[in-house]
C-alpha cells in the first residue's frame, strides 16, 4: 500500500486536479491512495473510500472547502461517509457538528 495521499496518484496519472481546476470539493488530499485514481479520473472529487492517509491535514482542507462554499453542516456530512469512524474523519466531522446550519 503506498504511503501517500490520493493527490499523488492524480499527479502520477497526470489527472487534472478537480478542486483546483474546477472548484469541486475533493477528499483526495487527506485520503489514502490505492484505488488507482478512480474518481478524479472520472471528473469528480474523491470521496475517501480508502480512509484517511497517515498524517492528514484536516484543518487545511476544511478551510479550503469553506472557501469553495461549503458550510459547517455540509462539512460535517462530507467527512461522514464510508470511512466516517476513522479517527481523523470522525474528529473533523465532529468539529463542525455544533455549528447551527442556518
Amino acid at each position, binding site marked *: 500500500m503506498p504511503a501517500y495521499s490520493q493527490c499523488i496518484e492524480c499527479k502520477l496519472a497526470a489527472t487534472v486536479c478537480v478542486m483546483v481546476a*474546477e*472548484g*469541486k470539493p475533493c477528499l483526495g488530499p487527506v485520503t489514502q491512495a490505492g484505488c488507482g485514481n*478512480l*474518481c478524479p*479520473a*472520472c*471528473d*469528480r472529487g474523491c*470521496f475517501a473510500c480508502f480512509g484517511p492517509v497517515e498524517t492528514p491535514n484536516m484543518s487545511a482542507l476544511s478551510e479550503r472547502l469553506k*472557501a*469553495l*462554499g*461549503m*458550510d459547517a*453542516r*455540509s462539512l460535517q*456530512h462530507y467527512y461522514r*461517509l*464510508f470511512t466516517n469512524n476513522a479517527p481523523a474523519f470522525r474528529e473533523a466531522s465532529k468539529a463542525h457538528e455544533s455549528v447551527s*446550519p442556518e
Partner: protein
Amino acid sequence: MSQSAQSDTRVIEVNALARVEGEGALYLRVHDGAIADLKFRIYEPPRFFEALLEGRDFRDAPDITARICGICPMAYILSACQAMEAAAGVSVTGPLRDLRRLAYCGEWIQSHVLHVFLLHAPDFLGYDDSIQLSRDHPEVVKKALKLKKLGNQVLEVIGGRAVQCTRSTSVSVACTACRAARPSRGSQTTSNGAWRRRSNSPASPPAWPSRVSMMTT
C-alpha cells in the same frame, strides 16, 4: 427442502433459498397435480438506508444507495438519481438517458449471467457448484465468464468501474436537478453536468445547493 407426500397432496417447503441474493423462502402445496397454495416470501430485514440519507446533500444519495448491493448497484444508483430528479421535477432525456439505459443493460448482463450460469445451472445439471460443473463442461463456464466480463466492461466504460460505478457524467443526479433546486446560484454547469466556477468571476465560489430532507415513515 422438506417434502411430505400424501395420497394426493404434496408440500414443498424451502425455508432458505440459497440461489437468490438476499433472504427468501418458498412454500408450495400441490393437490392433484395442480398448485393449491404458493407463497414466495422475502424476509430480508429493513436496511435503513433512508436514515443514512436523512439530512444529507441530495447528491450523496446515489453513492450511498449503491452500497445496498455489490451485484446490482446500478439499480440503486439510478433509482436514487431518479428519486432526486423527481423531487426537483426534472426528467432526464436524450443521450444521458441512453447512457444510463446502456449502463443498466451492462449490469443486467453481468448479474443475470451470474445468476443463470453460476448459481442455477449447477443445480439443474446435478452439480454442487460451478467449479464442479467446469470439470465436465469447461467451455460452458468459460462462455459464462466471458459474458459476465462483457457486462462488466459496459459498466467500466460508462460508469468508471464495474462495481459501484462512480463516473459523474452518467451516474449522478442530473445537473438540471441541481439547477432546479437552487436557480439563483452563482455557478453554471458544463455539458457533462459537472459544476464549474463561472469563468468570468473566478472569485465567486459555487453556491452549495440546499439539502434535501428525506421523509421517512
